[in-house]
């Protein structure tokens, strides 16, 4: 194989799959999250105790309650705010949601109380509540749902926490791979003098960058395939998405996070600095972007910020595609957000990424 690009790509893939640490963080870690969260929270068989305080008493709230009763995973309780809160405090409820009187008339922020001791169950319960409320509001009052996440009609189906979790974890692992793999390897290559040695050959720099980018994009596809297969095999994942759409959205997300990785490698002095900066970027985003829990858990003042994070757009688009069978047009809002981020991060990468070692 005398083609430099083909050879560089092949060696990049070999290096990738032989690096146990990288395989652990990019494949095994996300798989573990899905398996463990799936075991803890269950795949729809475990019941969530949801208390609803129906202050609206209108068709919209009725629809929400009716649909919740159909969900096998949900055991529904209704009552006054006081009694439901008391039940929650005793640990008999995973979450208590108040349907305000204005439900169905204007977009509402639901007040929710949840069991801090059972965060996973609570957030799964809240995620499900959100979907039903948004859908019911939309159907009865033509009120636009408060989330793009739930913009698609949810036809009575048995959503489990795993359905919510898997696309989120896919988004997270795409972020981790792009961010950490790019930033770590390029800083290491620079520090060790590897780039310098390569520059002493007639190698073309774009060939080298491309070989790395192709490798990480392939990894993104592998991650998606493994996580979806895992969800389907172990947890009856509700997956109705078109894989092509998933891959396209996944690639855009991967490109954004690789661009951030290139940016970091441009100014990080060593691998310690990379770890600090990349974690600073990715860790808060992981929790703020609704990877593990629905966005509605976060304080209202934080939500406008979290809704604009690149990981939020990515996770939401992947969720709509895989759970609702959405096409690219249906997730155009998220795609627009991703496109803006892609432009921002590419400009940053081009400005700050330094190939030269000195």
């Amino acid at each position, binding site marked *: *194989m*005398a*083609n*430099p690009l*083909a*050879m*560089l790509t092949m*060696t990049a893939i*070999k*290096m990738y799959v*032989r*690096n146990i640490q990288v395989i652990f963080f990019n494949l095994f870690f996300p798989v573990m999250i899905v398996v463990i969260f799936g075991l803890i929270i269950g795949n729809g068989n475990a019941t969530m105790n949801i208390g609803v305080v129906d202050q609206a008493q209108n068709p919209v709230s009725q629809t929400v309650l009716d649909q919740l009763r159909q969900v096998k995973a949900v055991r529904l309780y209704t009552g006054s705010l006081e009694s439901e809160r008391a039940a929650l405090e005793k640990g008999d409820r995973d979450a208590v949601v108040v349907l305000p009187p204005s439900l169905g008339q204007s977009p509402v922020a639901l007040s929710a109380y949840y069991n801090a001791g059972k965060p996973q169950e609570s957030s799964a319960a809240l995620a499900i509540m959100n979907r039903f409320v948004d859908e019911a509001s939309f159907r009865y009052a033509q009120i636009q749902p408060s989330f793009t996440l739930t913009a698609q009609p949810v036809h009575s189906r048995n959503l489990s926490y795993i359905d919510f979790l898997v696309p989120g974890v896919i988004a997270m692992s795409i972020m981790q791979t792009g961010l950490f793999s790019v930033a770590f390897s390029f800083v290491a290559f620079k520090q*060790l*003098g*590897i780039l*310098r*040695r*390569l*520059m*002493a*050959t*007639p*190698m073309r720099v774009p060939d080298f960058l491309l070989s790395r980018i192709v490798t990480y994009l392939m990894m993104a596809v592998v991650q998606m395939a493994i996580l979806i297969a895992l969800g389907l095999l172990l947890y009856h994942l509700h997956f109705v998405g078109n894989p092509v759409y998933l891959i396209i959205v996944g690639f855009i997300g991967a490109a954004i996070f690789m661009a951030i990785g290139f940016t970091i490698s441009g100014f990080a002095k060593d691998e310690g600095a990379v770890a600090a900066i990349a974690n600073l970027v990715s860790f808060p985003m992981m929790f703020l972007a609704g990877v593990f829990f629905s966005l509605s858990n976060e304080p209202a003042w934080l939500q406008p910020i979290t809704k604009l994070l690149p990981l939020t757009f990515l996770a939401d688009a992947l969720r709509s595609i895989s759970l609702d069978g959405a096409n690219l047009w249906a997730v155009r809002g998220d795609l627009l957000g991703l496109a803006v981020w892609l432009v921002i991060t590419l400009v940053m990468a081009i400005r700050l990424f330094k190939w030269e070692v000195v």
Partner: protein
Amino acid sequence: MSELLRLPARGGARAPFDCALRLRSNTDSGDNVSGMSVVTRPEESGLSTHSQGFAIVVDGLRKRYGSLVAVDGISFRVKEREIFGLLGPNGAGKTTTVEILEGLRKADAGRAIVAGVDVTNDPQRVKSLIGVQLQASAFFDYLTLVELIDMFAALYGRQVDAPAILRRVDLEEKAKSRVKTLSGGQKQRFSIATALVNEPRVLFLDEPTTGLDPQARRNLWELAQSIQKDGRTIVLTTHYMDEAETLCDRVAVIDHGKIIAMDSPITLIDQLLARGFRRRRVEREANLEDVFLDLTGHELREA
């Protein structure tokens, strides 16, 4: 390398010979289009017409970093098949000079013709004609020596017999190992192997024996000499004067960005003695290194 290149091409060689020499090197590179430009270039510049018989011609090279003048008007010529030493204290400008010749840095002024090609005009072509062993250069982890050799060859658009190249530097039995498992001497030999994949006309060795034990140093000297016998030119930077004395046909001593002396080691020594220099203590017939090698043997110590 061809027999033609083995012919001594020193001094003012005649035109027909030079023509044959250049055409031969063109076919070696397998690139006729850019090869032609090498043939035509001597007519374009006054300097290049004098570069024949020389692997490297450097004329008035200058490089400054801010207020620091790293290279201050350096000129020298390296003959074909010569081992040429660049000596000088740290920060003297050796590495900057070498990096300009390797096409890794741009000079602020002056010209450098390496393997018949102007580095300023066509650094990519120079890179394809030379081999480089960098000071403390590392290689990708997670790849075997064979895979690395194949990768480097591909960067030159070549396919090579990787085991044969590893055999050339005595690393055949390490073909499936990774670089991090190699000893210091083996790493340097491997580094030279990666610099040989394109059958370079000029090989740059930057402090190749720093940190090696006496056995490994001698082993590397033999390797350098055998590469010279293959018909290649070597530019060596080193801080070890015994190494320069043993290996180099000629050396240039650089300080503060200028060449302050340039000749064969023996001539430079004779000149010093002629100026009345005497060592305070007369050297014995043997030194401690001879004792060390007598006690521990010349055999290489590597796992």
